[in-house]
């Protein structure tokens, strides 16, 4: 099961955070994000993409200036999650056309929607990019009409 998905930039600033567990206060959350990010950023390219953090496994992948971090429990397939991160990035890429940090910042609601289409409650639901983006296109069309 996925416990959290984080997108941070290389300065360690959180750009998107989705937690599938409860019980974290805002301070604990900030501390957790800081620590994980610090450890991820300090790793070298040649090291593997997994690190152990408390009782979680954190799987991370870097895309240009953005780090995608996914915390999972013991049972999850690390390599599968790595593939999921790639799938998420490809989907974001397809929707935003070459996704970058600013796209996420200014369209955080859309980013969350894409994520919710792909994963819910810590489980992966959909990995077909077209199916994921379809509802977003509909929303975009509707809001264009409204304008």
């Amino acid at each position, binding site marked *: 099961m996925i416990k959290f998905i984080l997108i941070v930039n290389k300065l360690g600033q*959180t*750009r*998107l*955070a*989705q*937690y*599938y567990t*409860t*019980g*974290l*206060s*805002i301070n604990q*959350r*900030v501390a957790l*994000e800081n620590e994980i990010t610090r450890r991820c950023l300090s790793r*070298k390219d*040649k*090291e*593997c*993409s*997994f*690190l*152990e953090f408390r009782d979680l496994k954190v799987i991370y992948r870097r895309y240009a200036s953005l780090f995608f971090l996914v915390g999972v429990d013991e*049972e999850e*397939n*690390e*390599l*599968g999650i*790595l*593939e*999921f991160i*790639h*799938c998420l990035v490809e989907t974001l890429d397809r929707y935003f056309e070459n996704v970058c940090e600013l796209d996420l*910042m*200014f369209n*955080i*609601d859309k980013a*969350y*929607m894409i994520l*919710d289409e792909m994963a*819910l*409650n810590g*489980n*992966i*639901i*959909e*990995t*077909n990019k*077209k*199916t994921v983006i379809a*509802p977003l296109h*509909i*929303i975009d069309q*509707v*809001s264009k009409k*409204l304008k």
Partner: protein
Amino acid sequence: MSMQVRDLIKAVRGCKTQQKIREVITRESALIRNSFRKEDKINRPRNIYKLIYIHMLGFPSEFGQLECLKLIASPSYIGKRIGYLGLSILVKENQEVLFMSTNIIRNDLSSEDRYIVGLALAALGNIGSSEMLRDLAPEIEKLMESESSYLKKKATLVAIRTIRLVPESVDRFIGKVRTLIGEKNHGVVLTGLQLVLSIVKTEPETIVKFRKLVPGLVRMLKSLINSGYSSEYDFRGTADPFLQYNILRLLRYLGEGSKKSSKLMADILTQVGTSGGITKNVEIAILYEAVLTILSIESDSKLRVTAINTLSRFLSGRHNNSKYVALNTLLKAVNTEPKSLKRHRKVIVECLKDQDISIRRRALDLVFGIMDKQNVESLTQELLDCLPKAENEFRYDITAKICTAIEKFPPNDKWQIDTLIKVLTIGGQYIRDDVSSMMTSVIGRNPDLQYYTSKKLFNILLNDRYRNQTFLQVSSWVIGEYGDILMQKSEKDGELITTTQALDLFQILLESSRTTDGTKYYILTALIKFSTRIEGHDELIKKIIKPYREHVNVELQQRACEFFLLFDYSEIRDPILDRMPVFVEKEIELEIEEEISENNNKGMNYNLQENTHTIQNQINNIQNIQNIPNVQNTQNTEMNELLMLNTDTKKTQTQNKQDSLNFLKEIFNGSSSSNTNNMNNMNNNMNNNMNNNMNNNMNNNGGQDLGLDLGLGLGLGLGLGMNNQSQRQNQNKMQMQKQQNQNQTINQNKNQNQNQRQVQNQSQNKSQNQNQNQNQSKVQNQPIIVYEKNGMKIEMNFKVGNIRGAPAVMSIIKTTNSSPLLISNYLLQVAVPKTLKAQLSQPSGQNIPPNGNGSINQQLQIIKMVNQKTQLAILLRINYVINGQKIVENKEVSNIPIIF
């Protein structure tokens, strides 16, 4: 008017410091709050949007929670979208507000717009609380049957959450599984599989039912593998890997414990395990899951070997990630598949040289896991080879593993010593603390290797004297201890090792600035030992030791002073510096375990205090016997007080108790030692105390610090404690030592020598006896009534066993009160013969209620200190108050049926 979302983000991005960001956010938060207060409907979505951003930056946003509810209640989709987003991000932790949203969500679930239903489901799936989900379960169930696959998969995921939070609702969803898995849409099938997984985890009994799904799942997997390219769910040439590995995971749960199901999936698992390539991450992910399944289910040995081979392929691949998962999996398989694992030794060892520390660390664990008697030599060599290149932190891990291996599977003692020396020289300071004690114990029990080892260490030292401190300590100990053997044999062999050479080396090491004070203790001790091992070098040794009498380090100074004085007392010098008795490692291990389990407070310090205390007693005794004037005694009590100050209050209490015990012991003996000149008595006392000391030393410090051990041993011989307390105390000690030395007659010295020998013999005997006594715990169940008066009854039962390797009797003392009066201020004191040592625990209370309505329990441990058969006899002193009357009574218990 608050700003646009875009402007806020720009403003925050423009801030150079965290302080500036805080200012911007605080200002904006205030504006948002104002706008909320004014019920500004138009700007509400925008404000929530901003709050989401503010929340992400880690600033408070609670004031927006109710606004989210208002938004999701609004009719427009845009408002609902932001509202639900806000709900799942901002309101997540606030159960009350969440619960208030239940009805709005219920309405949305029955909306005609499927995107609105989708929004509500997504929010429920992410944040739904158990109360909400329990309330909404019927709606969720209905939506799982919806025609739209978009809603179906979302509803299924909400069902998974419901099962997790409300386990009793599981029955509701079991019936839905078959249709979900039978769907064509991959998303629906995927969530269906995850639903089965969560049902199986919550209700393991359902596994039997779900085993019927196995053939279908196998077919599905087969078609996925054979389907080739399908544009919809293609991941770099692999058809829907997520579906594939989820099927494999479900198969794992279904196959576990069932031979029939395992057989059904064997073919497809072989196909997956052998066909896939290992170049792409996707392929490896599926292979990895397949391997996990093969290893968990009841598969035949051939399939298991295939699985291990696949993992080995991962290890020889280029990807670090696959290496990591392979090592992790192999670690889990170490116990079940040791044979096939050992075949891949080469690849595993290769991973020790990987650039990634987490891979190296796992490889190290695995190397250790596959180690056995046959391959220990070659594998240890491999570990030693990668030691010089390893970084410090990892070095420590490697040496620790090597040491454990040396202990666990030693082919022979010579190999053990060679490897230990290698660890010491290469490992540098990053070695486990007990390496030195392990080394000395191996040498101690192998007289044949003493020359070999000391020569080897000496030559290493001679060629490169700036080794690490641990190495210097061990080698100076060994050379000092076996100096005579080294010199004699090397002369015979024609080796060019001379005593002067050794002494020169020691002097250079002592004077070197790189040698720490801790190491210097060892070197000084080695030097003084040399003086007894080899004759004719006393003057040179004296010359080397002399300057250290004025060293800044008090400990070093004291040692030097004592050693220097020892030259004048050649009769006591030899026995004091006699060969160390062989360490018995088992005893040390036992001791350490016990210590850990017993009490964390009792550290080294505590033991030291105890030692010093007994040594003080010993001094007391000597002084009492010799009628040394009172002045001396006051000094002594002063010292005692000083010592007391350093212990915690609890300890002080026990010390007091010990004192009163000593007092009782004297009663028991029927003679008071304070004024008698009786040599015999002194002898007894000395014997007893030294015995205590020696045992304590052996037990407590044996495995921990060689230098300290020696120091205490010597201090004991001189009637001194080696506790590094204060300069002043030190001076006191020196003074006393002089006086004592002057007072002691040759006769006494001889006695002491005998005692010393006796103690050594005893400690050796003790270790032999220990094994015999270990399994001898017999229970004498009948309690003996030892005292019955005024309605008070004291019962004792006895059990023979051993404590810290010494034979002992454990007893539970139970005191009851059948009189109609309350017994208060109850205190029991115990005395035993001098050959025994008694320890009485705190009583469970001080007062015993009348008419048998309560009891006091106390534990008594009696440890045998001398190796001879002893009839157990106990003297009790019972103090209590009954009916306002204080009663003190002595009672001797001699009818105990125990001889030990």
